[in-house]
């Protein structure tokens, strides 16, 4: 099980089915929260997660596809699009340099 320290995260990817709707929404929220942390936040379709992603967050209903497409990435599934604790935990980890398990 992969682990990364929050301070080593350079690129956070938010993935959804088309990479055009819900992921854009969540990515813009996270970008605002992480503006001071020098982290790139991108949104992509779950089928094309970029190779240089450090951490991927996506809805748990899509996590199987994310893992199939990017088996070596740290994938954090979440359940609700607004204020999910799993996502909050990733943000906190990046801000404070705690570990993220995927």
């Amino acid at each position, binding site marked *: 099980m992969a682990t990364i320290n929050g301070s080593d995260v350079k690129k956070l990817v938010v993935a*959804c*089915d088309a990479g055009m709707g*819900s992921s854009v929404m969540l990515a813009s929220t996270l970008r605002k929260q992480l503006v001071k942390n020098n982290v790139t936040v991108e949104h992509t*379709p779950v089928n094309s997660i970029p190779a240089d992603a450090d951490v991927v967050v996506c809805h748990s209903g899509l996590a*199987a596809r994310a893992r199939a497409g990017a088996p070596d990435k740290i994938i954090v599934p979440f*359940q*609700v699009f*607004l204020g999910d604790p*799993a996502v909050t935990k990733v943000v906190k980890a990046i801000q404070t340099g705690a570990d993220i398990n995927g």
Partner: protein
Amino acid sequence: MSTYTPQVQGSGFRAGVQRIGGHLAGMVMPNIGAFIAWGLITALFIPTGWIPNEGLAQLVDPMIKYLLPILIGYTGGRIVHGQRGAVVGAVATMGVIVGAEMPMFIGAMIMGPLAAFVLKMFDKLIEGRVRPGFEMLVDNFSAGIIGGAFALLAKWIIGPVTQNIMTLLGNGVDWLVDLGVLPAVSILVEPAKVLFLNNAINHGVFTPLGVQQVAENGKSIMFMIESNPGPGLGLLLAYFFFGPKLLRPSTPAAMIIHFFGGIHEIYFPYVLMKPRLILATMAGGAAGVTTFMITGAGLVASPSPGSIFAYAAVTPKGAGNWIGMIAGILIAAAVSFVVAAALLGFGRLKEDQEVDDSSAEALGAEPADGATKHDSPAVARNSSPEPGTA
């Protein structure tokens, strides 16, 4: 955790269907802008449009016959094999367009990726074997020859075959409409939607069928089956009044994002955490489709994202179209609200004030009292495997 997401015939199957559907939608969705441009031009300038104009209406036919399928074939090729795949995909799509007499979306969805895939195989085969200095020659002519060959193949075989398939599908839809059972389609669509097959269904199936109907009749109900924001709105309203107390505060924002922003994904988790509520969106969806059918409502292009603003933008001229559109959304919302409220026991069922399973304790979004001491199950998936990984 296990009850969080309804189990559907093994999650490997579900992910597989999602992936295939995702590819179909992935060819259409980046091009929605072009579909909307075509829909607006059609709604404005055709003889029955807002400002009929014969000269400008000349744009309508070439756009649907050539531009839109070629964009789909191009994008499909690009998904498989980058820019080179996109080029051969577009060339091959030209074959189906000329080989058939109707707008060829399904054909484009087949030929674009297929031609790109063959080029990809070829590129792999010759990788490292081309003498220095000849790369450009080989690259250009391999793409040209493969693209051209697939255009011919498409003209002779794929075009006519897909034309027959499309005619069959179109007849099937007409048959469903004539029989009056179109609302029953919601029984399949609404559950598939919350399993994140929403884009696959809407843009992989309904958009191509709908565009064809618009070309024939000037509007189509196909665009309104999956994208109706009513059922989701009703469900969220029911949660707001009668849902678990922990979840109520998060629903107003979700309603705004869903109904005005058109991002339906926002309500899926609310169904997934209490799967029986799927009955509410099914009933709401069916009521909406029934209303659209009775009033003869239709849209000129896919309202994407499924926001009330997008609906208004692609509703054609005519009071009946507007009344039908608004009534269908409101009735869908009302039915979905009533059914969801009843299923939630109007807030009186005690066990319903808890969310169905332990994972959802975290969903309240307020880690105020004690919620923080639980490890979030979504992160610690070692101890509680996600549905979908098995």
